[in-house]
């Protein structure tokens, strides 16, 4: 079955070529495909939570709308914009590396990183608001159970939950549980992404990337954009779902 010889490594192998690949093209292809396959696993991972969200939203529409309306839509929207800008700068960073503009690529990477951290900062503000309003579900934080103040009729205090008559706080808790599970997982991915970006940034600083070899930048970009996409879905599903009912409640 095996006959003859095949050439091994190209004559002047690139220093970044790993020993088990034939050439840079193969190495790059493997890396990109690997990241895409990994993103598939991520889609399925988040998919499980989206499924739970769908079912319970259908089951407790009133509680979900009321709980969602209590989220801070301004912070959510700002964060959406922050992430979109960061996706843009990430794309620009990839472009700059592709055309060999090292300085630009470093600037764009730094911007992406800063925007990512901004997102996390805003998220932290939101979480602490929830903490203040006793909206952390269950005993997620020991000694600080889910126990929000419910607004009485005519009470406009924004820190209180505004529940339509008959909606059980119990089911509001379910919403918050899903909210924290999904945004928490998303934030975790952001943190990992920020870590990856830092590494890439250091490598770029040291001048490791070139128009011939930049697949690490590209692959990290794929990951970053994916995390952005998750948020593109989370934002309307979590923050916007009950807004149109606000007047009626």
């Amino acid at each position, binding site marked *: 079955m095996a006959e003859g010889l095949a050439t091994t490594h190209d004559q002047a192998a690139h220093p970044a070529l790993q020993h088990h690949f034939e050439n840079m093209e193969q190495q790059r292809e493997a890396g990109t495909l690997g990241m895409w396959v990994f993103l598939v696993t991520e889609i399925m991972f988040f998919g499980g939570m989206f499924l739970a969200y769908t079912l319970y939203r259908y*089951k407790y*529409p009133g509680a979900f709308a009321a709980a969602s309306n209590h989220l801070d839509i301004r912070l959510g929207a700002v964060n959406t914009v922050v992430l979109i800008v960061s996706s843009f700068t990430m794309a620009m960073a990839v472009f700059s590396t592709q055309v060999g503009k090292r300085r630009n690529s470093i600037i764009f990477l730094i911007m992406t990183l800063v925007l990512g951290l901004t997102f996390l900062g805003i998220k932290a503000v939101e979480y602490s608001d929830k903490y203040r309003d006793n909206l952390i579900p269950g005993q997620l934080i020991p000694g600080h159970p889910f126990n929000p103040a419910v607004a009485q009729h005519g009470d406009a205090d924004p820190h209180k939950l505004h529940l339509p*008559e*008959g*909606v*059980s706080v*119990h*089911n509001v808790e379910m919403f918050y549980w899903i909210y924290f599970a999904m945004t928490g997982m998303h934030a975790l991915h952001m943190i990992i992404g920020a870590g990856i970006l830092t590494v890439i940034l250091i490598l770029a600083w040291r001048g490791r990337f070139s128009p011939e070899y930049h697949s690490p930048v590209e692959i990290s970009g794929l990951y970053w954009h994916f995390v952005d996409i998750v948020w593109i879905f989370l934002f309307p599903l979590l923050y916007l779902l009950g807004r149109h009912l606000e007047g009626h409640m």
Partner: protein
Amino acid sequence: MQSWFHYIVPESASTISGDVDAVYFYISGVTVFFVTLISLVIIFFVIRYRRRNAFEIPRPIEGSHKLEMLWSVVPLIIAMSIFAWGAKVYFAQYRPPQNALEVYVVGKQWMWKFQHPTGQREINELHVPVGRKIKLIMTTEDVIHDVFIPAFRIKMDVVPGKYTAEWFEATKPGRYHFFCAEYCGMNHSGMRGYIEVMEPKDFDNWLSGNANQMSPAAAGQAMFESLGCVSCHGANAEGGRGPALLGVFGSNVVLNNGQTVRADEGYLRESIINPQSKIVTGFGPIMPSFQGQLTEEQLLSLVAYVKSLSTAKPETPTAKPPAAGTPQSANPVKN
């Protein structure tokens, strides 16, 4: 039951157990056929074409589309025949019967509580008449359990937070095992008991021998008052701020989103525990949720009461018909 058969085939004592066995034996036949066929062919080939000398190289053989078709289509047809038959019997197994005697079942770690429509309670043992359809309406106070009666070939999980049901009609008097067939913790294997199938006349005797207990519907009515349901639904459930409950059970309820749902026990339960999920058209979502305030047995009583308000009522049990609303005492005691 005399022969050795008794040792490898379970007792068959319900109207559907014969149908299930028929499917079982059909699949057994298919299995034995294919396993024998394949084994014999393999044994034949292995002997006939054994390697006779170390250097022999057989001629390669091209695959055959005709054969591939044959051995995918034939199994497919057989498989579909099993599917169709199995589904048909299953549907009969699970379509709730009309006019069944309804027994409420509550499982908890690790015992079974039964309550007859006439109020008699039993633990880990259930007396039923032969030749009557019995429907078990089941729920649990803690984890998932399962009522499995091998002799009747039925089994259904008992799931916390909702009602499930199974039914049977016993064909032979006798004492049959039932088991908890969903793993539920330490004493799972001890959560078993007997179904005592009796002649109708013996059953009536048994019932009247244990008669002086409040029927679930009567207990439910008392709670309907004590929990304040009357304030919205009216003292005789004739309606008020909330809809009238007379005749609701078994009817098709129109919801405010335009859908209609059938008001079965599950719907009644949901209306009390989680009223928000389905709002009756013409009413606001004002009914408070009673989640966490009622034991499963109390809930079952409430449901039984609302059911008793329907004309499409299950027919009265053989023994003393319960007079809904007679007792004065308030909350029934949880046993």
